[in-house]
Every structure is written in C-alpha cells, then in structure tokens.
C-alpha cells in the first residue's frame, strides 16, 4: 500500500519543465508539428487510436508528440481525454463489405473475385535500412510515380469467408440481434460473451496479444489458422439521431479487418466445418488484427468442446490483463511511496532474524 506524501512541489515542477525540455530536444532541430506526426507516422497514430479507443488522428498525433513517442503513454493520454467527453450516439454497425479498399489480400485463395490488392505494405520489402530517408527522402516527383500498367475496373469484392459459408464449409456468422456488451459502462464478468471479448481485445495491448497469438501457433492452443482475408480501407460511419429519425453519415474512418480461417471442427449438430476468428482495428493495423483474430478463435474453446489448457484460451486471464493502461498503471504504481509498508516489512524481517539468532544461541548453550 502506498501513502500520501507532502512536499516536493518545486522539484516536481522542475521535473516537468525538464520533461518539456527533453521532449523538445536540440533547439537547432526544427520542432515536430502535430500534422507531421499524423501524416508521417500514420501507423503509430493507428495504434494509439485503437488502444486509446478514440478515432481522431489529430488527438492521437498530439498524444504521441506530448508523450515523446511513448505509445503506451499516448494511449493513456487519449483514454484520459476520452473521459471528458460525453457519448452522444452509438453508430450503425460499419459495413466492411462496402469498404473502399486500400489493401486486400488472402492467403487462402490465389485468385479471388475482385483480386488481391497489396496497397501500401511492408511486406516484400527487404528490411534494409533506406539511407535515402536519412538524406533528403524522396522528391515529390518520385512519390508521384506509381507505374500505371493499365486502367483497372473496380471490381466487386465479396468476402472470402462468405464464399465458404455458401458452400457450407464455414461456421456461419449470423446476427443474433442482441445489443452488444459495453465494457466501458459495465466491467465484464467471466465467462463473458463474445461482444465484450472483442471490445476488450480491440483495446488490448498489441504486444500482449501478439505474443499470445504467437503462442497458439507454437502449439499452445493450436487452432490451425489461415489468413482468409485481410482488408484495410475506409468505411462510412452513420448514426440515427432521435431528433431526425433517419440515419446520416458523419464521415468515413479507416479500419483494418482480419478474418481468420481456422481448423475444422465437429459441431453440435455433427456437421464438420471450418471455424473462424475475427480482428478489427482503427487505421492500418494488420499485426494487431491478425493477433486479435487468433485469440478470438482460441477463446471460443467452449463452443467447440476444446479443453482450455493453454494461456491463449484463458478468457479471464487475457481480458483482465490485456489493457495496457490498466497494466501500466498498476505496474507503475510501484514507483509511488511505499515507505510505511516497506518499513513494516523491514521491521518484521529484522525481528524474525533476531528471534532466530536468539533461539540458536539458547539451543547452543543447552548442547
């Protein structure tokens, strides 16, 4: 337990001034602007928005600048800001099938209707440091030049997993018309339903989920995954305000979605079908959605009569430890003054050792 302390105001004030100074760095170097962060570090912004749980690139970029690039701290800042705003509406569910696709790939079908679009990706790069960026970067003319092979017609892109659903090879994803759980209003109780689980996973720490997802691949809760379809792009968000009575688009947001095809399983009705896991995140956030989909599937153990023997299958363990704001908060609280607590432990240990020494002395005398 920590205790309240007084004093140290001047030192704290000076420490914060020093933080400002450290964040600014060398004054000879131009200061980083918030638009520069949001335009040029979009993947950091995407992570902060997803785990900070607010889609607002400008706010996320500000948080990244303020936190000097510490993304977990930036996520914390965004969550704190979130509590100052009231929630006006809940949106209609976004329709990712109608996404304006910026990237769409499948690891299960080579040729699929609508084709595979690589979009902007680190895949197939050689992971060699690009020293052009250390110099002047690319010129606008170079950036403009994306070789245009031929005019492409925009094709309809059906969902890969739905194609398998139609062939009765895939567990169907049907709308049960229930209102989704909201863990921001009501803390989840375990076992919880899948809507609460997915909400917690979206907000969950990417590193933690990545490690757990990886563990399923190494045999701890094996669920035999294939990346059925991954999409990134913009989707419209619409709401239906009570005063209007009809739905209006409030804008478009960029999301990434991953649909995992998992090993087939015998269902309740003795049918055998592929199972599935789902991942969704704000912005371009592929690693996160892949990890989330792996864990979403692992956590459906009960549904498919699987023994929960691996870490990635433990719902309560994962959901109550995946939030990095909570985790960082509790770990960091160890820095707070625990003087009294520690003094009592110190006292106790000294007494125990003293008693032990006395006992040894007396038994030595007796012998």
């Amino acid at each position, binding site marked *: 337990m920590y205790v309240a302390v007084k004093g140290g105001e001047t030192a704290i004030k000076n420490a914060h001034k020093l933080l400002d100074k450290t964040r600014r760095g060398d004054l000879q170097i131009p200061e980083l602007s918030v638009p520069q962060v949001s335009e040029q570090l979009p993947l950091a912004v995407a992570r902060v*928005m997803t785990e900070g749980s*607010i*889609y607002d690139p*400008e*706010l996320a970029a500000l948080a990244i600048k303020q936190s000097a690039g510490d993304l977990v701290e930036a996520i914390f800042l965004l969550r704190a800001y*979130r509590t100052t*705003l*009231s*929630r006006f*509406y*809940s*949106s*209609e*569910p*976004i329709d*990712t099938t109608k996404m304006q696709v910026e*990237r769409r790939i499948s690891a299960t079908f*080579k*040729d699929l209707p609508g084709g*595979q679009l690589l*979009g*902007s990706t680190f895949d197939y790069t050689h992971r060699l440091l690009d020293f052009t960026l250390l110099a002047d970067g690319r010129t606008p003319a170079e950036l403009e030049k*994306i*070789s245009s092979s031929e*005019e*492409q017609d*925009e094709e309809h892109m059906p969902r890969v*997993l*739905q194609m398998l659903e139609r062939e009765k090879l895939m567990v169907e*994803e*049907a*709308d*049960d*018309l*229930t209102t*989704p*759980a*909201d*863990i*921001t209003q009501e803390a989840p109780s375990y076992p919880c339903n*899948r*809507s*609460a689980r*997915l*909400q917690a996973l*979206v907000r969950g720490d990417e590193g933690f989920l990545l490690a757990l997802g990886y563990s399923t691949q190494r045999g701890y809760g094996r669920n035999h995954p294939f990346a059925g379809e991954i999409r990134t792009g913009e989707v419209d*968000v619409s*709401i239906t*305000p009570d*005063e*209007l009575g009809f739905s*209006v*688009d*409030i804008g478009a*947001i960029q*999301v990434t979605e991953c*649909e995992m095809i998992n090993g087939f399983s015998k269902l309740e009705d003795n049918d055998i079908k592929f199972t599935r896991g*789902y991942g*969704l995140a*704000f912005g371009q956030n592929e690693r996160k959605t892949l990890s989330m989909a792996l864990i979403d599937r692992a956590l459906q153990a009960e549904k498919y009569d699987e023994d929960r023997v691996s870490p990635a299958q433990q719902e309560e363990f994962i959901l109550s430890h995946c939030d990095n704001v909570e985790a960082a908060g509790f770990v960091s609280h160890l820095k707070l003054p625990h003087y009294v607590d520690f003094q009592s432990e110190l006292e106790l240990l000294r007494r125990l050792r003293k008693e032990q020494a006395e006992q040894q002395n007396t038994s030595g005398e007796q012998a």
Partner: protein
Amino acid sequence: MAKSSAETLIALSDKYVNSHPFETIRAAEVGLTQVRGRMGGTGSQFNVGDMTITRCVVRSPEGHYGHSYIMGRNKDHATRAATLDAMLQDQIHQSLLMEKIIQPLAQDLAIKKVQKADTVAQTKVNFFTLVRGED
C-alpha cells in the same frame, strides 16, 4: 458536407451564408460516438471504440431547423453544415446551394475516390504458384 474538408466547405459557402441571421438552438458541441462493428463483418454487433463527433442545431429566420453531425472536433465545420442544412430546406435557396456547394463537393469527393482507387489498383497482384523442386 460531413465528408468534405471544413476549409473547402466554408470557402465555398461563405458568400451565401454570411448575410443570413441564424438563431443558435444548440451551439456546436464535441462528444463521442460509439463505433460498432460486426463479428466476422456480417454477424452480431460489438463495440469497437469511440470516435469524436461535433453536432449543432440552428434555426433560420424562415423557421427551418438545420442539424449537423460531423466526425472530428471542428465546431466551425459543424455550425456551417447546420446553417446550410437549414437553408437547403428552403425552396428559395435550395437549387442555388445545391448547384454551387453540394454538387461541387460531391464531385470533388467522387474524383478523390476514383484517384485513390486507381492508385491502389496499380498494386493488384497476380500470384502464380510454382512447383517446388522437392522430388
């Protein structure tokens, strides 16, 4: 109006709106909208996270109520959109505003969408599988 940039909307509409006195019913305010998704893209709903939204209600001298709901935190954007929403309900202004503001905005958005789709289309791949020399 929600999807266009605030600068473009305001620049296009300034000369039609400025002379018009409007009563503010609900001043532009910033809040959140819970974004919902569907499991597997098509199944039951779940909450993904929030996004910022600005809403505003105004009333025109003719008595029309204008509403706006726009992602982000730009109050000028929301106020201008609400004002235009009220004016667009008025027959006198409607056709002019449609022609001078809404249609150009829609066209601009459509062009951007096509340009983006074109660039992305250049990254379309045709993979072909090779026989692995294992035997």
